[in-house]
Protein backbone atom coordinates (compact mmCIF):
# COMPACT_ATOMS: atom_id res chain seq x y z
CA UNK A 1 0.00 0.00 0.00
CA UNK A 2 1.40 3.43 -0.84
CA UNK A 3 2.10 5.68 2.07
CA UNK A 4 1.29 9.36 1.88
CA UNK A 5 4.37 11.58 1.58
CA UNK A 6 5.01 13.25 4.88
CA UNK A 7 7.48 15.86 6.10
CA UNK A 8 8.96 16.27 9.57
CA UNK A 9 6.59 19.01 10.60
CA UNK A 10 2.96 18.71 9.69
CA UNK A 11 0.43 20.99 11.33
CA UNK A 12 -3.05 19.70 12.09
CA UNK A 13 -6.02 21.84 12.97
CA UNK A 14 -6.35 20.54 16.53
CA UNK A 15 -9.66 21.36 18.21
CA UNK A 16 -12.28 22.51 15.72
CA UNK A 17 -14.31 25.13 17.48
CA UNK A 18 -16.19 26.81 14.65
CA UNK A 19 -19.39 25.02 15.63
CA UNK A 20 -19.34 26.33 19.21
CA UNK A 21 -21.04 29.47 20.50
CA UNK A 22 -18.65 32.40 20.56
CA UNK A 23 -18.57 32.64 24.38
CA UNK A 24 -17.54 28.97 24.59
CA UNK A 25 -14.97 29.48 21.88
CA UNK A 26 -13.39 32.39 23.72
CA UNK A 27 -13.26 30.43 26.96
CA UNK A 28 -11.64 27.47 25.27
CA UNK A 29 -9.02 29.47 23.44
CA UNK A 30 -8.13 31.48 26.54
CA UNK A 31 -7.34 28.47 28.69
CA UNK A 32 -7.33 24.87 27.56
CA UNK A 33 -10.04 23.80 29.95
CA UNK A 34 -12.19 20.73 29.87
CA UNK A 35 -15.10 21.40 27.56
CA UNK A 36 -16.76 18.04 27.16
CA UNK A 37 -19.74 16.68 29.12
CA UNK A 38 -21.71 13.49 28.91
CA UNK A 39 -24.99 14.10 27.12
CA UNK A 40 -23.41 16.91 25.06
CA UNK A 41 -21.95 16.85 21.58
CA UNK A 42 -18.34 15.72 21.32
CA UNK A 43 -15.91 18.45 20.33
CA UNK A 44 -14.46 17.82 16.90
CA UNK A 45 -10.73 17.91 16.14
CA UNK A 46 -8.24 17.09 13.43
CA UNK A 47 -4.90 15.43 14.22
CA UNK A 48 -2.21 13.49 12.40
CA UNK A 49 -2.45 9.74 12.72
CA UNK A 50 -0.77 6.46 11.90
CA UNK A 51 -2.98 3.69 10.59
CA UNK A 52 -1.61 0.16 10.47
CA UNK A 53 -1.42 -0.96 6.86
CA UNK A 54 -2.32 2.49 5.52
CA UNK A 55 0.33 4.90 6.78
CA UNK A 56 0.19 8.49 7.91
CA UNK A 57 -2.92 10.57 7.41
CA UNK A 58 -4.83 13.36 9.11
CA UNK A 59 -8.00 12.24 10.88
CA UNK A 60 -10.99 14.22 12.05
CA UNK A 61 -13.16 12.84 14.84
CA UNK A 62 -16.17 13.84 12.76
CA UNK A 63 -14.97 11.51 9.95
CA UNK A 64 -16.61 8.83 12.12
CA UNK A 65 -19.87 10.67 12.78
CA UNK A 66 -22.81 8.27 12.35
CA UNK A 67 -20.94 5.40 13.99
CA UNK A 68 -20.32 4.44 17.59
CA UNK A 69 -16.86 5.71 18.57
CA UNK A 70 -14.62 4.78 21.47
CA UNK A 71 -11.96 7.45 21.91
CA UNK A 72 -9.12 6.09 24.10
CA UNK A 73 -6.48 8.42 25.50
CA UNK A 74 -3.35 6.72 26.89
CA UNK A 75 -0.16 8.11 28.47
CA UNK A 76 2.32 7.06 25.86
CA UNK A 77 3.70 4.58 23.40
CA UNK A 78 5.98 1.96 25.00
CA UNK A 79 4.21 2.23 28.38
CA UNK A 80 3.19 -0.77 30.37
CA UNK A 81 -0.40 -0.98 31.59
Amino acid at each position, binding site marked *: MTELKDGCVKPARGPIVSTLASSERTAMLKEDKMMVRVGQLAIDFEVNAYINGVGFQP*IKLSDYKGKWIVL*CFYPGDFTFV
Partner: protein
Amino acid sequence: MAAVAVRYEEFKALGVEVLAISTDSRFSHKIWQEQELSKMVSGGLPFPMLSDAGGRIGAIYGVYDEAAGVDIRGRFIIDPDFVIRAMEVLTPEVGRNPDELIRQIKAFQHVRATGEVTPSGWQPGQVTLTPGPELVGHVCEVWKP
Protein backbone atom coordinates in the same frame (compact mmCIF):
# COMPACT_ATOMS: atom_id res chain seq x y z
CA MET B 1 -4.13 -0.44 24.35
CA ALA B 2 -3.19 -4.03 23.54
CA ALA B 3 -5.91 -5.25 25.93
CA VAL B 4 -8.48 -3.36 23.87
CA ALA B 5 -6.91 -4.53 20.61
CA VAL B 6 -7.35 -8.23 21.40
CA ARG B 7 -11.11 -7.59 21.76
CA TYR B 8 -11.25 -5.80 18.40
CA GLU B 9 -13.53 -8.39 16.79
CA GLU B 10 -16.13 -7.71 19.49
CA PHE B 11 -15.93 -3.96 18.90
CA LYS B 12 -16.24 -4.53 15.17
CA ALA B 13 -19.30 -6.75 15.66
CA LEU B 14 -20.91 -3.93 17.67
CA GLY B 15 -20.15 -1.45 14.87
CA VAL B 16 -17.72 0.49 17.05
CA GLU B 17 -14.75 2.46 15.71
CA VAL B 18 -11.90 2.56 18.22
CA LEU B 19 -9.46 5.48 18.09
CA ALA B 20 -6.30 5.45 20.23
CA ILE B 21 -4.77 8.83 21.02
CA SER B 22 -1.66 9.96 22.89
CA THR B 23 0.73 12.91 22.80
CA ASP B 24 3.27 10.82 20.87
CA SER B 25 4.05 11.63 17.25
CA ARG B 26 2.72 9.53 14.39
CA PHE B 27 6.32 8.38 13.84
CA SER B 28 6.49 7.01 17.39
CA HIS B 29 3.13 5.26 16.87
CA LYS B 30 4.51 3.55 13.77
CA ILE B 31 7.64 2.24 15.50
CA TRP B 32 5.72 1.09 18.62
CA GLN B 33 3.36 -0.75 16.33
CA GLU B 34 6.15 -2.41 14.35
CA GLN B 35 8.56 -3.15 17.21
CA GLU B 36 6.25 -4.20 20.00
CA LEU B 37 2.48 -4.21 19.45
CA SER B 38 2.70 -6.46 16.41
CA LYS B 39 4.39 -9.02 18.68
CA MET B 40 1.68 -8.73 21.38
CA VAL B 41 -1.35 -8.70 19.12
CA SER B 42 -1.48 -10.66 15.88
CA GLY B 43 -1.38 -8.13 13.04
CA GLY B 44 -0.73 -5.22 15.40
CA LEU B 45 -3.15 -2.58 16.66
CA PRO B 46 -6.05 -2.65 14.20
CA PHE B 47 -7.26 0.88 14.82
CA PRO B 48 -5.94 4.37 13.99
CA MET B 49 -3.37 5.82 16.39
CA LEU B 50 -3.84 9.57 16.71
CA SER B 51 -1.19 12.10 17.66
CA ASP B 52 -2.35 14.73 20.17
CA ALA B 53 0.53 17.16 19.65
CA GLY B 54 0.90 19.42 22.68
CA GLY B 55 -2.05 17.84 24.47
CA ARG B 56 -4.51 20.29 22.92
CA ILE B 57 -7.16 17.63 22.45
CA GLY B 58 -6.51 16.04 25.86
CA ALA B 59 -6.95 19.44 27.50
CA ILE B 60 -10.47 19.96 26.20
CA TYR B 61 -11.34 16.33 26.99
CA GLY B 62 -10.09 16.82 30.57
CA VAL B 63 -7.31 14.21 30.47
CA TYR B 64 -4.16 16.28 29.82
CA ASP B 65 -1.66 16.22 32.70
CA GLU B 66 0.31 19.45 32.34
CA ALA B 67 3.03 18.45 34.81
CA ALA B 68 3.79 15.24 32.95
CA GLY B 69 2.98 16.57 29.50
CA VAL B 70 0.89 13.53 28.60
CA ASP B 71 -2.73 12.48 28.32
CA ILE B 72 -3.74 10.19 31.17
CA ARG B 73 -5.95 7.17 30.51
CA GLY B 74 -9.43 8.27 29.58
CA ARG B 75 -12.03 6.75 27.32
CA PHE B 76 -15.16 8.25 25.84
CA ILE B 77 -18.13 6.49 24.26
CA ILE B 78 -19.63 8.66 21.50
CA ASP B 79 -22.94 7.71 19.86
CA PRO B 80 -23.86 7.99 16.16
CA ASP B 81 -25.34 11.46 16.80
CA PHE B 82 -21.88 12.55 18.05
CA VAL B 83 -23.13 12.81 21.65
CA ILE B 84 -20.76 11.72 24.41
CA ARG B 85 -22.53 8.96 26.35
CA ALA B 86 -19.87 7.91 28.85
CA MET B 87 -16.42 8.80 30.05
CA GLU B 88 -13.95 7.08 32.34
CA VAL B 89 -10.67 8.65 33.42
CA LEU B 90 -8.05 6.85 35.51
CA THR B 91 -4.70 7.86 36.96
CA PRO B 92 -1.95 5.89 35.21
CA GLU B 93 -1.29 3.08 37.70
CA VAL B 94 -4.47 1.12 36.97
CA GLY B 95 -5.39 -0.25 33.56
CA ARG B 96 -8.83 -0.31 31.97
CA ASN B 97 -11.41 -3.07 32.00
CA PRO B 98 -12.50 -3.81 28.42
CA ASP B 99 -15.38 -5.99 29.75
CA GLU B 100 -17.00 -2.96 31.36
CA LEU B 101 -16.44 -0.84 28.26
CA ILE B 102 -18.15 -3.45 26.09
CA ARG B 103 -21.00 -3.81 28.61
CA GLN B 104 -21.63 -0.07 28.54
CA ILE B 105 -21.61 0.03 24.73
CA LYS B 106 -24.15 -2.82 24.58
CA ALA B 107 -26.33 -1.07 27.17
CA PHE B 108 -26.25 2.28 25.34
CA GLN B 109 -27.04 0.54 22.06
CA HIS B 110 -29.96 -1.27 23.68
CA VAL B 111 -31.31 1.97 25.13
CA ARG B 112 -30.97 3.70 21.76
CA ALA B 113 -32.79 0.88 19.96
CA THR B 114 -35.61 0.35 22.46
CA GLY B 115 -36.10 3.47 24.60
CA GLU B 116 -35.91 1.24 27.68
CA VAL B 117 -33.39 1.98 30.40
CA THR B 118 -30.95 -0.48 31.94
CA PRO B 119 -30.50 -0.91 35.69
CA SER B 120 -27.18 -1.23 37.51
CA GLY B 121 -24.86 -3.93 36.15
CA TRP B 122 -27.23 -4.78 33.28
CA GLN B 123 -26.10 -7.42 30.81
CA PRO B 124 -27.83 -8.21 27.49
CA GLY B 125 -30.86 -10.44 28.09
CA GLN B 126 -31.51 -9.16 31.59
CA VAL B 127 -34.57 -7.16 32.62
CA THR B 128 -34.79 -3.52 31.56
CA LEU B 129 -37.02 -0.76 32.89
CA THR B 130 -39.52 1.34 30.99
CA PRO B 131 -39.60 4.76 32.64
CA GLY B 132 -43.00 6.33 33.27
CA PRO B 133 -45.47 7.24 36.01
CA GLU B 134 -46.54 3.59 36.45
CA LEU B 135 -43.01 2.58 37.42
CA VAL B 136 -42.68 5.11 40.23
CA GLY B 137 -42.70 3.24 43.56
CA HIS B 138 -42.85 -0.11 41.76
CA VAL B 139 -39.26 -0.65 40.66
CA CYS B 140 -38.85 -3.24 43.43
CA GLU B 141 -41.50 -5.42 41.74
CA VAL B 142 -39.46 -5.78 38.57
CA TRP B 143 -35.86 -5.34 39.62
CA LYS B 144 -33.65 -5.99 42.64
CA PRO B 145 -29.91 -5.34 42.91
